[in-house]
């Protein structure tokens, strides 16, 4: 029977929310790894029972967990993330060079084809890969050769938080780093180059059009059209029609173009979602109204989706990894908030209900469509 499994990472544990295809009644399991920060959980597209989870703590560091049975049971796997060779240095706040120091895994992106192959995006920014189901991790050091000495942490840390795999060109992948920018590899992660032409960061960078340094918050792609990328930058919602070679702004009539996540409808590559946040220092919705904005035209023209979402006194945030869509016939859309709510829509965002309202602050939301 078809259904969905929503994987929720929070500040104090992980939760798995399950439903049949109607998505009306939900089973809530958890907390798994209670008390730990769960930055990301992600299922393998090649084997939905294989799930990876990034478990981290200021006290005890990084743990990676793996489930082979859809999240019923878990086992810790390898947690050694050693930078390749001499770690090198990057820009520090005071203008000096600072050594790369591993802090945590922000993103686990399983291969589209092999359950044992996973990419990990980490802080301080780098990308690692396992081909043995997480037992061992090796850095793909070419990324940090892409002007890594100029990268500088933003207020949230220098984190590699987005990994997008091209389903049509198996060796092409994209990553996004705060606050270094967007990068593309065409050789399976061996070499990388910035793909930031058209990004403008007027108030964040001395050279607003610099090749690196842009605070890219999230990138999304529709698998049927992988040359089209959508980006939520610190400010500005952007679009590329040439696999990142150039970008143009599509913020259009949004009330504010600051935000964190961006997502694409499962069946319509021109339908895009963002959750505008008031500003870079006021990380909550404008006017206390939680509104998802949807464009059906690939940007510029946006409509507010509000049915079922709080429209007064709401001051939560939606973090960059806390937005996902399922691929059931009527596309489901999901997001989690720093207030602990996970909202779901089973009709592309027209109507929303809260699956849960009182979890710890939500860091990430992923959804698996089960058939």
């Amino acid at each position, binding site marked *: 029977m078809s259904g969905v499994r929503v994987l929720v990472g929070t500040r104090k544990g992980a939760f798995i929310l399950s439903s049949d295809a109607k998505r009306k009644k939900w089973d809530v399991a958890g907390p798994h790894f209670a008390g730990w920060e769960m930055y990301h959980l992600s299922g393998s597209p090649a084997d939905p029972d294989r799930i990876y989870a990034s478990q981290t703590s200021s*006290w005890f560091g990084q743990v990676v967990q793996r489930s082979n049975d859809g999240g019923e049971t878990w086992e810790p796997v390898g947690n050694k*993330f050693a930078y390749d060779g001499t770690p090198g240095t990057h820009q520090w706040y005071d203008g000096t060079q600072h050594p790369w120091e591993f802090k945590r895994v922000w993103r686990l992106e399983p291969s589209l084809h092999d359950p044992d192959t996973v990419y990990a995006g980490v802080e301080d920014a780098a990308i690692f890969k396992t081909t043995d189901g997480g037992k061992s991790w090796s850095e793909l050091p070419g990324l940090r050769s892409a002007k890594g000495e100029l990268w500088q942490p933003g207020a949230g840390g220098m984190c590699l938080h987005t990994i997008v795999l091209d389903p049509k060109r198996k060796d092409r992948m994209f990553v996004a780093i705060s606050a270094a920018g967007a990068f593309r590899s065409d050789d399976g992660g061996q070499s990388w180059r910035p793909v930031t032409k058209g990004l403008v960061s007027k108030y964040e960078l001395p050279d607003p059009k610099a090749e690196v340094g842009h605070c890219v918050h999230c990138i999304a792609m529709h698998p049927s059209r992988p040359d089209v990328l959508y980006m939520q930058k610190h400010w500005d919602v952007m679009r590329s029609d040439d696999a990142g070679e150039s970008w143009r702004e599509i913020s259009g009539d949004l009330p504010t173009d600051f935000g964190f996540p961006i997502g694409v409808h499962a069946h319509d590559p021109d339908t895009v979602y963002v959750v505008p946040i008031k500003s870079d220092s006021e990380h909550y919705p404008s006017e206390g109204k939680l509104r998802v904005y949807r464009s059906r035209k690939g940007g510029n023209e946006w409509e507010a989706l509000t049915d079922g979402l709080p429209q007064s006194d709401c001051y939560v945030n939606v973090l960059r990894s806390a937005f996902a869509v399922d691929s059931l016939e009527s596309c489901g859309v999901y997001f989690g908030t720093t207030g602990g709510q996970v909202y779901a829509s089973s009709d592309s965002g027209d109507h929303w209900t809260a699956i849960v309202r009182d979890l710890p602050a939500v860091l990430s939301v992923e959804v698996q469509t089960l058939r």
Partner: protein
Amino acid sequence: MIRVVLPVHLRTLARVDGEVKLEVAGPASVRSVLDALEARHPMLRGTIRDHITQERRAFVRFFACGEDLSLDPAETTLPEAVADGREPLMVVGAMAGG
């Protein structure tokens, strides 16, 4: 036989109840005890001391016999009462809010 008390999150991770009892060859030190602990419970590698540098993680402390041993060199011989199992070596997570 050396007794080690782990914080609750590491007991959960290692799937142990209560104290961990270890045999350590030669004079026992924090380093040799942690080596033995990680050999038996590999999932604890990187959680008490850094994978690469082997330095104690900043918010982890080592207590024994009413003393804080955290700042002693890791190869310092542990008190006799720890070495003969009368007192445990406590691995402690630092106090913090949240």
